[in-house]
């Protein structure tokens, strides 16, 4: 199983969950990308990836490599501090560059308008958020965002979980395991 881990923690912060996922790096099927240390330019909203160079972003940087790795993975794990209920800007700069992987055309999907899929198969998606202080409302928004993403990014399976940084390591480990299992992913 090819697993891509996209770590969206800013450089000056860390999490126990991050440490747990870093352990998985030893597995040859796992690639861990620390986005804070990766120079990725922001999506300019030019729509070239839909209209001029379909499927490819015109910005030639690591953002392109991440999008390429994304679509060729069996599972992608997104890791982020829960930021105003959503993702950190560090994770989002990579996620904004994923739109070449879907097609600009509109279609009806699950009763709503969405973009047409570009590829026959997309990776399973595991979206993990970490809260330093428990915030129920923030967690609810996070789950909602993960669900919205799963409608637009066509993952074969999806799981999301909000962890509290205060959780003990062993409890965190089993929580991570069950979140991964929910999307059919094992590390």
């Amino acid at each position, binding site marked *: 199983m090819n697993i891509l881990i996209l770590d969206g923690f800013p450089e000056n912060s860390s999490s126990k969950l991050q440490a747990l996922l870093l352990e998985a790096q030893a597995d040859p099927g796992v690639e861990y990308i620390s986005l804070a240390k990766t120079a990725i330019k*922001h999506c300019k*909203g030019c729509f070239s990836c839909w209209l001029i160079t*379909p*499927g490819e972003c015109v910005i030639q940087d690591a953002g392109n490599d991440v*999008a390429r790795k994304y679509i060729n993975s069996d599972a992608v794990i997104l890791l982020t501090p829960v930021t105003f209920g*959503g993702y950190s800007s560090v994770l989002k700069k990579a996620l904004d560059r994923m739109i070449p992987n879907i097609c600009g*055309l*509109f279609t009806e999907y699950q009763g709503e308008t969405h973009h047409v899929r570009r*590829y026959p198969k997309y990776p399973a998606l595991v979206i993990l958020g970490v809260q330093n202080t428990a915030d129920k409302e923030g967690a609810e928004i996070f789950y909602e965002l993960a669900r919205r993403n799963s409608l637009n990014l066509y993952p074969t399976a999806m799981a999301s979980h909000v962890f509290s940084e205060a959780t003990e390591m062993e409890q965190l480990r089993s929580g991570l395991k069950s979140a991964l299992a929910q999307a059919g992913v094992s590390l």
Partner: protein
Amino acid sequence: MRVLLLMGSPREGASLRLGRALMASLKEQGLATEEYYLVQGLTQGWGKLESAVRQADLLILSSPLYVDSLPAPTIAALEALADNAAGKRMAAILNCGFPEPFHNTTALKICRQFARRAGCTWLGGMSLSMGGFSLGKGLSRRVRISMKLAAQALARGEAIPDRAVHLAARKPIPKWLYLLVLNGVFRRVVRKHGKAPIDAQPYFH
């Protein structure tokens, strides 16, 4: 009262026009206006934005929807402002290219959550669909009216009224027509200018 428009788009499209329309209505209400392109903060640092926010009483974020949320540079700006915007009032205008405005709902909650975290008074948000395409050359009448209603309330320090929210969210053309036209335009543009077929799969090994 001083109002600062936070431009959340890296482009100069629908978000700019909507934001400026609200700013024009706020100016009519006697407010002093200023605007800042959030994407500039990525290169020039956040100091300039922070001082503009310090001088403002009301913050208006106008932003497009990127992957169900705010664009990365907009989130980066909000991260920078989380400890520097206490006591301000805040409202947001979000727009998306989908025909249904509900796609913006989660991003609007994220704006509200930022306001809560930063200690701003949340005065609500407006959600528009069908992107810049449906706004027309000048803004349509319903958008202008909704902006005016919102501005009247915001100038009094009140939340954006429901009527303004509903008017802004109204679909200018039926969904089926929008999909037909947009998909047609997409196909035509790719046929004419595209360097690969519209359904190319360049990243697949």
